[in-house]
């Protein structure tokens, strides 16, 4: 090994703590990149492969009742490759040992056996035998949560009749990778599942013999999806077609896609912050090292080494640090990627997981990591190459201070001289102070942006559960009913208040823009469900016109006062032109509101309901559940209190894990920045600080000069970090909001406080760690050294 390379290794060993601090920051960036892109790629590959193997459909539509003969017409639509028509309905289940009614989506299996599209993957047992009317297959997660295995039976309320069904097999389906019940936000495997049943019994139960109400299409390559959707809508219109849609509105795929988008955004936003900070740190540390090694550089040059050789030497040193960081990042990223992919498997049910982070993400992160460090090192390295040997061997010129505005300010304040030393050092090296401030600010920004997501979820939950939906229970009715049904429901056990609700699917069109959504009638005197104005205040729905959620209004380019075309996708299937009366705030979903009298006038029908919102005495819930299970008119139940409880549990479970991971990222940046800044300070000022000890200053007083400067910079970084954090949060809010959920830009004081505190405490710990070295400097020897 060449002597210069040996020096390199020893330098790295001597600088290990600083090198490690930088490598960890760099490693974080590499790790996040590998983790996010690796997980994203794995999930995308798994999804693509699964969709392909299971023949997942590309266009979906529901109708009220379409004759089977229509399937031939649908198959003739240009661009359609395959059609699968079936019967679908939601039913209530009565599971042994479960008080609360569970519900399930029932899907029919063709008489010929397995479906051609959306093929279920058998995990255990078999599909129901054709001709068997009481055999069913269950979605695996639901069966597992309910302890149902092949051979066991359970009861379902089919068309008002209690029927015993026997489980033959457990399956997974590409349609239900993310399986949530109607109105729910998270999977609830105990209370919502999917049942596959032979066509005859399903059609009989749904009153759809010889007909279908659900159709899926697979398209030929190059087909124009919007054209197919329009053609399908035309065909289904006479049969209660509720508007066809592509995968982009298929609920399971929407959730999965939005998760993938978030991973993608994470891979784009986070790593550059870490890489930039690492680059600056390398710049700082290498700059200082080269300054300290001036005599050595001078000696090397005097002995005949070229500037280029010396530059390469220091470049190698920084690459050594980079390689350490990249390896750390790769290792942890690969491991965490597996963990994370496994975690996704809890929420997203695939029959198999392909963990394929791909060499590309490793290569990219490696190149970016080393590139960032080399870029950071470049300035210092160039300086080393340019040093003339004679100048290099002289000690560097002493720092030159000038009086400035700060001095006049400080004199007025009668600051102590040690404080003046702090202020002068900052004003003398503003660039270095700026790197420290920006580094810590970056850490705080990352922390704020990470914790912001929890604030945002809190706000969404608060809006959904406390401000807008105040009912305990929502009952979904099998079909539209006269408003007087509400009076009947009031007699159910424990019911304290009933409010009827009505909604129907619509397509809104404005110019080129169009959206499939549903409209809800807001009754007068309704107190359980409320509509919120843009500022969050309760809003009275105006007697005429529509109230649109902000997100939908933006998508359709609509403002209050504009007119919009609304096609009713249920009888009377009219197309109406209506004014937009108000814009409202709605974080979950995109439902349009209208005053109840206005809607029924437009529909030319008497007021109806298809949902009931209830307040129920919690003590009487068992009796209430029993009554609901026996009620023929109810096919769905949503327990808001349960949804909330479940949501809180899931969030709390994840929050600690996330807080720890994010806090570690924030701490690593802060420590990396502050530790290196402190080490550089110490190396520059050891002599000066030892002099103070000689003059009779105590350790604490001397430590103040070192700790005080860095903590002052940390404190300066806090507001800047808050500002950056707000900016990142705004980016996240805008970037991650989807049709399913809008992420409101809400950051609580607690988030700011925690982010600031984490940075402050880790900065303090890092400086105190360095301050301890000050104690090891023996006074007599410190005075002998002269740079």
């Amino acid at each position, binding site marked *: 090994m060449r002597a210069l390379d040996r020096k390199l290794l020893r330098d790295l060993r001597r600088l290990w703590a600083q090198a490690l601090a930088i490598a960890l920051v760099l490693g974080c960036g590499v790790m996040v990149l590998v983790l996010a892109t690796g997980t994203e790629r794995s999930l995308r590959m798994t999804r693509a492969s699964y969709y392909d193997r299971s023949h997942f459909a590309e266009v979906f539509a529901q109708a009220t009742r379409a004759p089977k003969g229509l399937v031939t017409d649908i198959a003739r639509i240009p661009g359609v490759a395959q059609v699968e028509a079936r019967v679908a309905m939601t039913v209530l289940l009565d599971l042994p040992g479960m008080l609360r009614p569970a519900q399930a989506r029932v899907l029919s299996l063709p008489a010929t056996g397995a479906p051609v599209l959306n093929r279920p993957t058998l995990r255990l047992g078999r599909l129901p035998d054709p001709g068997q009317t009481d055999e069913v297959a269950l979605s695996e997660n639901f069966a597992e949560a309910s302890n149902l295995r092949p051979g066991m039976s359970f009861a379902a309320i089919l068309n008002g009749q209690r029927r015993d069904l026997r489980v033959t097999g457990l399956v997974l389906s590409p349609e239900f990778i993310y399986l949530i019940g109607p109105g729910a936000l998270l999977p609830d495997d105990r209370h919502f599942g999917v049942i596959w049943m032979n066509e005859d019994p399903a059609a009989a139960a749904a009153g759809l013999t010889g007909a279908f109400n659900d159709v899926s299409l697979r398209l030929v390559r190059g087909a124009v999806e919007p054209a197919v959707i329009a053609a399908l809508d035309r065909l289904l219109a006479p049969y209660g077609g509720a508007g066809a849609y592509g995968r982009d509105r298929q609920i399971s795929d929407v959730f999965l896609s939005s998760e993938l988008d978030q991973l993608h955004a994470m891979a784009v936003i986070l790593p550059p912050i870490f890489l930039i900070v690492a680059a600056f740190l390398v710049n700082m540390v290498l700059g200082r090292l080269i300054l300290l090694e001036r005599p050595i550089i001078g000696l090397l040059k005097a002995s005949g080494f070229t500037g280029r050789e010396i530059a390469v030497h220091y470049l190698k040193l920084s690459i050594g640090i980079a390689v350490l960081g990249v390896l750390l990042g790769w290792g942890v990223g690969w491991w965490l990627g597996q963990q994370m992919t496994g975690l996704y498997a809890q929420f997203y049910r695939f029959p198999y997981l392909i963990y394929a982070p791909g060499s590309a993400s490793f290569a990219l992160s490696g190149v970016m990591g080393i590139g960032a460090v080399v870029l950071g090192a470049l300035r210092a390295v160039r300086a080393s190459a340019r040093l003339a040997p004679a100048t290099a061997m002289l000690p560097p010129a*002493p*720092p*030159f*201070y*000038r*009086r400035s505005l700060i001095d006049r300010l400080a004199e007025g304040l009668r600051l*102590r*001289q*040690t404080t*003046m*030393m702090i202020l*002068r*050092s900052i004003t*003398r090296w503003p660039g270095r102070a700026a790197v420290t401030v920006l580094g810590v600010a970056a850490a705080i920004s990352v922390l704020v942006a990470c914790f912001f997501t929890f604030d945002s979820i809190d706000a969404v939950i608060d809006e959904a559960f406390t401000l807008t939906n105040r009912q305990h229970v929502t009952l979904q009715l099998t079909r539209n009913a006269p408003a007087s049904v509400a009076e009947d429901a009031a007699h159910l056990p424990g019911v304290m208040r009933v409010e009827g609700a009505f909604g129907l699917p619509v397509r809104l069109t404005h110019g080129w823009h169009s959206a499939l959504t549903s409209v809800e009638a807001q009754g007068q005197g309704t107190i359980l469900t409320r509509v919120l104005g843009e500022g969050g205040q309760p809003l009275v729905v105006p007697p005429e016109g529509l109230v649109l959620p902000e997100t939908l209004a933006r998508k359709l380019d609509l403002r209050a006062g504009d007119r919009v075309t609304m096609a009713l996708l249920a009888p009377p299937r009219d197309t109406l032109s209506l004014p937009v009366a108000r814009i409202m705030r709605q974080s979950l979903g995109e439902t349009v509101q209208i005053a109840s009298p206005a809607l029924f006038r437009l529909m030319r029908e008497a007021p109806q309901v298809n949902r009931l919102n209830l307040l129920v005495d919690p003590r009487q819930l068992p009796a209430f559940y029993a009554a609901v299970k026996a009620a023929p008119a109810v096919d769905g139940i949503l327990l808001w209190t349960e949804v909330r409880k479940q949501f809180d549990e899931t969030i709390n479970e994840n929050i600690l894990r996330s807080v720890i991971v994010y806090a570690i990222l924030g701490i690593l940046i802060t420590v990396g920045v502050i530790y290196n800044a402190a080490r550089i300070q110490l190396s520059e000022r050891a*002599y*000066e600080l030892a*002099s*103070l*000890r*000689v*003059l*009779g*200053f*105590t*350790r604490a*007083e001397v430590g103040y000069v070192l700790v005080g400067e860095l903590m002052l910079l940390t404190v300066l970084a806090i507001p800047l970090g808050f500002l950056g954090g707000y900016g990142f949060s705004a980016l996240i809010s805008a970037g991650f909001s989807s049709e399913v959920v809008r992420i409101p830009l809400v950051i609580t004081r607690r988030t700011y406080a925690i982010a600031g505190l984490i940075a402050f405490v880790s900065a303090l710990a890092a400086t105190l760690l360095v301050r301890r070295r000050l104690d090891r400097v*023996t*006074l*007599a020897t410190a*005075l002998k050294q*002269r740079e």
Partner: protein
Amino acid sequence: MAGAVFHVQSVTKTYTTGAVEVLALRGIDLELYEGELVVFLGASGSGKSTLLNILGALDRPSSGHVLFRGTDLTGLSEAALTAFRRDHVGFVFQFYNLVPSLTARENVALVTEIARAPMRPEEALDRVGLANRIDHFPAELSGGEQQRVAIARAIAKRPDVLLCDEPTGALDSKTGVTVLEALYDVNRDLGTVTALITHNAAIRQMANRVIRMGDGRIVGVEDNAAPQPPTGIEW
């Protein structure tokens, strides 16, 4: 002559660096008296700096005792030694040890802020003839001026003892004399015990006593009945 300020009894000092043991002091017995100016002469490695560091509580002896006005410094804690330096000792070093980010006045104020009954920084600087340079930073001052700031800083707290380690070592003869004059005046006007280390024999003319050191021992002591002001000293 007045009473002894320092009693040094059988002090030895051994440094261990790696596998090598260096005997820097091999048994020193010495007294320093009120108001006197003592010059320690010796070649480098003779142990004079080690002795001065021990007197100034920058270092502890390996054995023996150092008594300051009856208090044994060797038994004191780290904190007590710091307090001792703070309250009683003024230091002047070869390389001035000024804080580069503080002006002359501020460098002096650094010490007066923590001293018990200091003089004003301006007064201290006036004593060393720098009244007109008080707002200059060290980098804006010549070597002699910087050393005089260091002296002003050392005397501003009205120390009992002034310890000077090669104060003229980095200066030319002419500048060195101005520095020595400042030290001489302080000793004469304030009566501060002054110990001055040098390897420059010419400086002995201004001392009350000259202590010669060699190989960690005191090899000779001369009393000087008629100390000369430094004005005439040259080297």
